[in-house]
Each structure stands twice: as structure tokens, then as C-alpha cells.
């Protein structure tokens, strides 16, 4: 059971990591927190429900999640961040993104109600499992892990090997110098928001497929954990977000196995405090920030 819990924790953590990556990406580029990402995660499941309801097959619904959430990310960028460019507007922009997220929750609740809604995934898909060294592992978990790894790989490639990634890193380092170098900072911001939001939507998509439900209040819980994970991994560090997510997922799963489930989210926050006490910059933050952004 312990090995099975560890595998389960890695899968769970990979979904945390996707949202944390979104937070990290925006924070790394703009130095601002985009709280609406939590609700874009929540929206991922509902876009699947709406798409399938309109007759789209699941694979197309998956693509639509990325596109819709990405586009909504552009809306968030325009509404909550475009005008707040000064350094002292961090709180205003973050609050504005929080407000946009609350509007998303309200709209979802007005459309689908306040309780969890079933996601139309054939139960056979969700129940299919393989035996592996005495463990029972759902195929869906393997698929989620694979998709998450692919998305993380694509993100890494985008950031480190493409012109767009180079521009993102330049803006993260210094928007002023990036402008002087002829980089369109506004476009880079939009690209960053699109990617971060699509990642959050992908996380929500996989979460809803795995659990068979979409819930309007899931974003808050997941978003808070993703923020803690960002701090654990190191603010603005992509590797930290991935490692922090998996670490939190595994620790949560093991805590439940050993009877500490009632502690709930305290575990995540206690872990964050411990990590920050030992390494104030997070697991990667202090030592690698400059290198990562160079």
C-alpha cells in the first residue's frame, strides 16, 4: 500500500505542479501573482463538460480546454495586469485577478449549480488498471502522469530552446532592457499568460477526468496548495514548482496512509514553513534564480 500511495502521490503532485508552474511562470516574468489561475484550473473540468455536452469527443474537449483557458488567461492579463505595470501595483493587480477568479466561480455556479457535476468519462476508462509489482495502478493515472510530463517537457523546450522562450527569459530578467533589445514586452506577457492559463486548465482537465467530477470550489483549495508549492520550490523557479508539487503530493498521500489525514492542508503549510526556515529562497529559488533567468 505504501508503494501504491507513493505512485498516487506522484500523480497527484504532477497535477499540483501544473498549476504551480502557471503561478511560477507569471511570477517569474511579471513579478506578480495571478490568482485567477486557481479558477482557470477549476474551469478546465467545466469546459470538458460543456464541450462534450455540445457533442465534442473527449480528445477535442481536451484541446478546447487548453485553448479556452489560454484565451481566458489573455482576458485576465488585459483586465487585471495590463494597466498595473508599476512595481507598487503588485497588490492591486493580484486583487484584481482574484476578483476575476471570483466572477468565474459565480458564473460557473450560476450555470451548473454549486455542487460537483459529473464529467462524462466512461467509468471503464477510469476503472481500467494494471498490476505492477503487486500494486493496482489505474491506467488513467499513468496517462495523466505521461501527459503532465509531456506538457512539462514542452514547456521546458519552449522556455529554453525557442525564440519565444528567450524573449520570456529576457523580460523576466528586465522588461526595460528587453524593450531596448526590441522585444515586444506586451506580447511576451500575453504569451506567458496564455501558457500559464493553458497549463492550469490542463491540470483541471486531468483532475476532473481522474475524479469524474468538476467542482466550482476546487480552484481555491488547489490554488492555495499551488502557491505553497511555488514557495517550497522557489519563487519563479520552474524546476522547483515541479519538484515541490511532487513532494507535496507524495507527503499528502503518505500522511493519509499513516492516519494523519485529519491534519489536511496543515501538512502542506507546515512543510512550506519548514522548507523556508531551512532555505528561505525555497528548494531552488535562492541559488538558481539568476541562472534560470539568464
Amino acid at each position, binding site marked *: *500500500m505504501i508503494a*501504491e*500511495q507513493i505512485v*498516487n*502521490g506522484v*500523480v*497527484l503532485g504532477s497535477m499540483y505542479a501544473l498549476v504551480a508552474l502557471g503561478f511560477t511562470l507569471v511570477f517569474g516574468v511579471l513579478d506578480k501573482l495571478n490568482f485567477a489561475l486557481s479558477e482557470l484550473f477549476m474551469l478546465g473540468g467545466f469546459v470538458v463538460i460543456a464541450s462534450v455536452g455540445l457533442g465534442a469527443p473527449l480528445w477535442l474537449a481536451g484541446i478546447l480546454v487548453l485553448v479556452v483557458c489560454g484565451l481566458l488567461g489573455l482576458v485576465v492579463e488585459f483586465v487585471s495586469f495590463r494597466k498595473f505595470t508599476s512595481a507598487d501595483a503588485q497588490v492591486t493587480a493580484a486583487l484584481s485577478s482574484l476578483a476575476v477568479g471570483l466572477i468565474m466561480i*459565480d458564473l460557473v*455556479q*450560476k450555470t451548473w*449549480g*454549486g*455542487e*460537483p*457535476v*459529473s464529467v462524462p468519462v466512461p*467509468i471503464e476508462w*477510469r*476503472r481500467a*488498471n494494471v498490476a505492477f509489482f503487486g500494486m*493496482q495502478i*489505474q491506467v*488513467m493515472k499513468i496517462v495523466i502522469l505521461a501527459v503532465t510530463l509531456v506538457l512539462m517537457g514542452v514547456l521546458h523546450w519552449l522556455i529554453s530552446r525557442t525564440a519565444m522562450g528567450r524573449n520570456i527569459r529576457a523580460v523576466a530578467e528586465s522588461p526595460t532592457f528587453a524593450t531596448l533589445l526590441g522585444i515586444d514586452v506586451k506580447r511576451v506577457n500575453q504569451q506567458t499568460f496564455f501558457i500559464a492559463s493553458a497549463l492550469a486548465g490542463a491540470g483541471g482537465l486531468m*483532475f476532473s477526468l*481522474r*475524479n*469524474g*467530477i468538476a*467542482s466550482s*470550489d*476546487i480552484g*481555491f*483549495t*488547489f490554488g492555495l*496548495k499551488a502557491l505553497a508549492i511555488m514557495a517550497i520550490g522557489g519563487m519563479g523557479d520552474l524546476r522547483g514548482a515541479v519538484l515541490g508539487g511532487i513532494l507535496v503530493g507524495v507527503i*499528502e*498521500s*503518505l*500522511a*493519509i*496512509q499513516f*492516519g494523519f*489525514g*485529519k491534519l*489536511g*492542508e496543515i501538512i502542506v503549510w507546515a512543510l512550506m514553513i519548514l522548507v523556508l526556515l531551512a532555505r528561505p529562497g525555497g528548494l531552488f529559488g535562492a541559488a538558481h534564480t539568476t541562472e534560470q533567468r539568464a
Partner: protein
Amino acid sequence: MFDRRQLLASTAALAVAGHAPLALAADKPPIKVGSILAMTGIGAVYGILYNAALKMAVDDVNAAGGVNGSKLELLQEDDQLQPSQSVLCFRKLAGMGAVVELGPLTGTSWETVAPIANAMKMPALCFTASKAGISAPPYALRIAPPDDTAIPEGVAEFMKLHPNVKKIAIAGDAQEASGAAGMELFAKMAKELGLEVVATASYQTRTSDFSPDAIKIRGANPDAIFISSLGPTSLPLVKELEVQGFDKPILLNSLVWAGAGFIHAVGTAGKNVYTIGFSTNDVDPANPKYNDYVKRFIERTKTTTNLPQPVNVCNTTLPYDTVFLVADIMRKAGIDGTTPADKARELIRAGLDGLKAYQGINKITLRDTGDGHIKCHLLKANAQTKQWEYALAPDQRIKTPAAFKARG
């Protein structure tokens, strides 16, 4: 000779004189009745459902002439299922002149509000919370049967249906008062019945992923699971258990029976799911009043809510009964809209003091704890119809209620 102006004035005077009592009644200010429900957030699906029942009751009372010539006016406050918010709402309603408060919904909120009701000398009547021992007479009474009678009654029928169950797992929301209390009662029942508890999984109201809990439970290989948490929290756990291939009976306490979402969303995972309650959407041949309520409530909620259809009537009869109970007390005490709020509250408190039983749609017996009792039964989820049904035929159901002390 009358000129036209005098004729009109005389006619108007006659008309007013002829309808004087009616005109006076309509002129009386309304009696303010407060309610605290979760209308947004995780508990909205409960709040919307109960609000529909409260409004229907208030409309029915008013259509029948109101109370001593005054209409009832429902003041609705949204606590978002947050106990701290419930307290603020309660104080706000008192400030607005409500003479009685109905709600809040959860045990956590009720045990927070009940002492304040006594401190502020404002009657409060809860019609849902299931944690036992938290009502606070004389001002704070609960009409609903709490889990200390509902769980023993439900488990007794569950064991009658599944006599081979020997090992159980207990899971529940340790953060929410009713969830945690339900877990303790399940453990107590297991001990009394000689059942072995092979695993316990505690989680929180906002737990987002239940796969670790399901793995733990499945690994312990119980014959059945007893779960105590609200519908939105229980649903993902039940779904996860299905995914992990657990196909043994699952008994959930009444927290999932109430509300509209669980039964509509549980799907095939509801194959072996049971809960505890005292009514279904089905016709009750012995209770025409109930049948009329069900028909009207389902019809009304089609147009007034965005709840999944057909709605689950569940315990919505209780807020309806509560409004009529309060109206009866006010009628007998001579309360109308002109009665000062403080005096009206005292009169209602006095009326509640003497209450031993109430026959509305439900037959409610008042206990010395300040809680109600209605005989509960085992209900089974029907995934096809998306309705709860009695798990046992009428002649198979256990008629003897759980032990409790009625008001003396």
C-alpha cells in the same frame, strides 16, 4: 340631491367601511422571520433547496391570511456555510427586527449560533444539523432528528439488509462538526454491534483528492464502509472508491440524503450506496399532506431554482413544518406585526418551552435535549431515477425508534 362629487365620496366611504377589517389587516406591518442559509459557495445547493421550502411555507401561511392579520416576511441571509458568517448573519437579523431565526444548516454553524441565540434571547430553530448534543434550549431548538437517533436507526436496518458485514471502514469529514460527530457515532455503533473497524480515514471539508483515502480503505479490505460527510465532500470519495474497484456496500449518514447534488451526480458509483432519512420523492399512501407537498414542491422548484431536476425532496418538509410551527405559536400568543420584537421573541420562546410534539407534514417529537425526533430508515440510491428509495419494504422496516428521552 347629491352632486357627482358627493356621490363619489359617499361610494368611496361605503367601500372603505365595508372592507375596514381587511384594510386594517393589510395595513398591519409584517412579522419578520429570519433565515440563515448557505446561498453561495459549497453549501449553496442545500441553501437553495431549503430556501424554496421556506418561501413556499411563507407563501402558504400568507395565502391563508397570515398570522393574526400580519403577513410573514422572510429575511434571508447567506452565511456561505461559514460559522463565523452565521454569527454575523444572526446578529444582523436580530438588528433587523426578526422575531425568530430559522437555520443555519450545519452542525458547526448551529453549535456556534445556538449559545448566541440564548445570550441574545432570540429564538432560533434549526431544521437540518445532524451533530447531537448542540442545541441549547430554551431559545435554540432543533426540529431535525440528530445523528444520535438517526444513525442507530439507519445502521440497524443496514445490518438487517447486510447481516454478513463483520469488518467496516469508517471515513468522514473530521473538520465539520456533523461529519466528525457522525464518525464517532459510527464507531460507537460498530462497537455495540461487534463490528471490527479495520480502517479509519479522516479528511477535511475542502479535501480535493480522495485517492489516498480510497487506497487506504481498499487496502484494509472491509466488508462495508460507513461515511460521514456532506454531499459535496462525500461524492468524490464514493466515485474514487468505484474507480478503485471497491464494490461493497457504502453507508453514508443523512448528510448526503439532504441536498440535491449527490444523488444526481453519483451515477454508477451509487450502485451500492445507502443513506439514512425519513422521506423520499415517492407517494406515501398514509400521508396525503406529504404527497401534496411533494407534488407542489417539485413543481415549484422547476421554475424557481436551477437545481438538477427532479429535485430531491429529502428533508425540505422540515423547514416547511418549522414555518408553520412558528406561525402556530405566534397565532396562539397573539403576535402580529405590531408586537415589539423583544416581546414577540419572549412569547415564541414561551411557546417553544411548552412544545412536546408537533404534527405537520412530519410527526416531530421533541426531546429533552431540545432536538426533534422523526423515525429514520435506510434509503438506497437509485442511479437510474436519480432518487433515493427506501431500502426495505414497508413491512421489513424496523419500527422501533432508537432510545431517546422525550420532553417531560
